[in-house]
């Protein structure tokens, strides 16, 4: 446990505390009076209000749209199910720079709704809410659907045999079993939408601002560190609260349920009602997720000379007429893969050790550490990035210009996923197996290799895949960290979008498509590996 604690203390807690301190400390004295001052400003109050209600609305909307999806993925068997499950997860790991562009195409002028009914939703709050559904659909489908597929349908059938109506049986039997999972999913969606950055910035226009956007603005643009520090503390408190409730629902969910193999519970849909439900869900997924992703692909192929791979070919050359990157954009793929690989290794080691420590020990301290590991998901990238700048500036830790900073920042976001994937599996390993091995003369290392490793190998791979995909798409922290001139894929996309000209725009779309494909392929591979569905993601 010492290692993960040291890692988080050094690369998370220290930088964040330092940057907050820079804003709130004057001559070594904390100025907590500033908190009240900032919070009583009307513009800040407005930001807080908008942040909260849009997160609530997004969560409700996501649950409404995604719960039928969770049911369909859990209970029905249909061709292409694995592929579709990977597809709905792609948005979750795509950088918002890319998605914002695609989403505008659906909701904006000339978009799908506009063509059909003349409805335009860009720069309205609806665009933000729908994009949040797009991003978080998979959270609900995976968290709730994962559990649902393992609930024994016979329990509900038994209740019906005993005379309960269809609805009553569902309410009395299935709903209570599902409730903790729904609660956990809702809280994760609330966390992600509460700290929403890119979606609000791109789709909301200048009129809407969340806490996260405001922290970015105050830090990066205005250098108003006191205000940024207060907002960071507020977000910290809110995220801490959400995580505490989340940890509580997770513990409740670990109460024994009769779980069965998902393969037994899903079957082909029967009857008009079930087929209509399946059709409805497929249509929703198509409109909400496949179409925006498809738009990206379409644009990447739409050259002035008709459809073709011109933009993809252009990615290979360091631009004959003027060097945009000093290196061909295609090299960004190599950079991204290497960074993500290192980040995954770090996340696996840190997350794996943390998960192991959390399984072996109990108590409030350990539970607190569990929540701490999740905090990076809710702390703004600019806070961490700027914190790195002012803390890691002395040898031997002058890492500010080192490439290692990028994977380190990415690993911070990857660790929570590793912990969440590994924890349930590790907890399920019967301690008696380890003891038996020890009695038979195995060294601790040997016992781990022979007992734990085979059991957690799959979970480890799943965790690695997720950490990898998340690192690949990470944009917020990466863009703030100065680095030798080797951009990652999302950064390269953002740079290309930052210039005018058809070739730049087309190349940005082509790179986005490649990023999407790489994410989709790694997720698809995960689907093949994973059989155990008790992990949260």
């Amino acid at each position, binding site marked *: 446990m010492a*290692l993960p604690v040291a*890692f988080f203390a050094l*690369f998370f807690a220290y930088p964040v505390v330092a940057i907050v301190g820079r804003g709130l400390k004057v001559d070594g004295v904390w100025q907590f009076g500033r908190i009240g001052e900032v919070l009583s400003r009307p513009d800040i109050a407005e930001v807080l209000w908008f942040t909260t209600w849009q997160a609530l609305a997004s969560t409700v909307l996501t649950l409404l749209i995604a719960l039928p999806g969770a049911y369909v993925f859990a209970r029905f068997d249909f061709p292409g199910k694995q592929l579709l499950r990977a597809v709905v997860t792609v948005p979750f790991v795509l950088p918002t720079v890319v998605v914002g*562009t695609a989403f*505008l*195409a659906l909701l904006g002028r*000339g978009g799908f709704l506009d063509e059909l009914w003349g409805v335009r939703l860009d*720069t309205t709050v609806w665009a933000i809410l729908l994009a949040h559904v797009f991003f978080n659909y998979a959270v609900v489908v995976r968290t709730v659907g994962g559990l649902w597929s393992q609930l024994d349908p016979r329990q509900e059938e038994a209740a019906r045999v005993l005379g309960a109506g269809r609805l009553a049986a569902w309410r009395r039997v299935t709903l209570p079993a599902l409730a903790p999972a729904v609660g956990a999913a809702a809280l994760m969606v609330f966390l992600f939408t509460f700290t929403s950055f890119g979606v609000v910035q*791109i789709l909301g*226009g*200048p*009129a809407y601002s969340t806490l996260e956007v405001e922290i970015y603005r105050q*830090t*990066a*643009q*205005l*250098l108003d560190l006191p205000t940024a520090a207060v907002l960071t503390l507020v977000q910290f408190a809110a995220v801490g609260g959400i995580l505490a409730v989340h940890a509580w629902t997770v513990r409740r969910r670990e109460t024994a349920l009769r779980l069965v193999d998902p393969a037994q519970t899903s079957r082909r849909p029967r009857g008009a009602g079930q087929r209509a439900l399946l059709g409805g869900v497929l249509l929703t997924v198509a409109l909400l997720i496949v179409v925006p992703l498809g738009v990206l692909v379409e*644009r990447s192929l739409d050259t*002035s*000379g008709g459809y073709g791979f011109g933009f993809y070919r252009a990615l290979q050359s360091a631009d004959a*007429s003027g*060097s945009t990157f*000093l290196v061909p954009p295609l*090299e960004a793929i190599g950079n991204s893969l*290497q*960074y993500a*690989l*290192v980040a995954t*290794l*770090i996340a696996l*080691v840190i997350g794996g050790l943390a998960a192991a420590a959390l399984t072996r020990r109990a108590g409030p301290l350990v539970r607190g550490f569990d929540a701490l590991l999740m905090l990076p998901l809710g702390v703004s990238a600019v806070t961490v990035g700027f914190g790195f*700048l*002012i803390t890691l*500036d002395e*040898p*031997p830790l*002058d*890492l*500010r*210009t*080192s*490439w*290692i900073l990028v994977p380190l920042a990415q*690993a911070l976001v990857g660790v929570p996923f590793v912990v969440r994937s590994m924890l349930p599996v590790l907890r399920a390993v019967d301690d008696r197996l380890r003891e038996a091995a020890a009695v038979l003369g195995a060294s601790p290392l040997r016992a781990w290799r022979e007992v734990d490793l085979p059991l957690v190998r799959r979970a480890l791979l799943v965790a690695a895949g997720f950490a990898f995909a998340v690192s690949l798409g990470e944009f917020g922290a990466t*863009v703030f960290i*100065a*680095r*030798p*001139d*080797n951009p990652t894929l999302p950064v390269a996309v953002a*740079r290309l*979008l*930052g*210039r*005018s*000209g*058809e*070739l*730049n*725009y087309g190349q940005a779309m082509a790179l986005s498509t490649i990023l999407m494909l790489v994410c989709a392929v790694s997720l698809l591979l995960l689907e093949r590996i994973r059989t155990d569905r008790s992990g949260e993601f």
Partner: protein
Amino acid sequence: MNTTTKCAATALAAALGVTVLAGCGGSDDDASGSGSSKASKTVTLVSHDSFNASESVLKAFTKETGYTVKVLKSGDAGAALNQEILTKGSPRGDVFFGVDNTLLSRALDNGLFTPYEAKGLDRVAADTQLDADKHRVTPVDTGDICINYDKKYFADKKLAPPQSFDDLLKPAYKNLLVTENAATSSPGLGFLLGTVATYGEDGYQDYWKKLKNNGVKVVDGWEQAYNEEFSGSAGGKKTKADRPLVVSYASSPPVEVLYAEPRPTEAPTGVATGTCFRQIEFAGLLDGAKNEAGGKALLDFLISKQFQEDMPLNMFVNPVAKDAALPELFTKFGATVDKPTTVDPEKIAKNREQWVQSWSSLVVK
């Protein structure tokens, strides 16, 4: 990046053991290095994401001076400067490039730079030397923020494109203009400052009220304004954008030509030259730079003829050196802006917050 794989194992140990990291990171990063003899051969340039130079030109610098340039890009212009202010005294590099006249006072007030009079400054246009008596910063390029228009739209409508700030208020141009958020986007701020310069501190609010009534649309950043909303850009054509007027740069039309295939004989967009605000970008030697000699050589190089002539097609800005020739693409497709508006940096520093705030409450909310 090959070092990444080599260092992967070390990195892991580093993340865990931390001390090992110095070995790995250090050898990879001479510029930030702990003053080894090798460090003095590298000079580090910190800049924003838009910095670009041809590899051949950077190589020529190495051949001339023996210094290798390492470039660190960190975010947009505002964010990059603020990171420099945060790390003041212990900078990540030797030279910072990319502070413009709208942010100049913030940099100077924070004492970011060590004075140095670059060699060849006599060849640099006098009106760009805003710190001529102290030489804390050296002008490197200029750019003009102007309204761009979609030529096809105005030809189809048989309507003359607007030429001045006043024109934009005319009913004929109602609901045609898209601009950027002045609080977060540098062209957005430039356009706002252009109206302040034109109508004065008392008149600009009134102008924006009228502009709002004439249907101006505000989006957050240049990318959205130009690629998503502006009907004249390559991106805008794909998104079926419907705003034929956008706040962009005087150099945007040449870029549209350069990055089109096949290259058109005429730029699809034009520039309303009466709506321009002049941006001047500066570089300076960072206070506390580890390689001061290298930094000075790099500053000299930034205003050398070779670098100045390389700049236009890499960053789409104009050279400040009088002996630097513009590329044909610029002279043929670009616009010459004779009388750009401008506001004194100190005045901007004093009033920026307030101007932007009243603009926000007037136009955005």
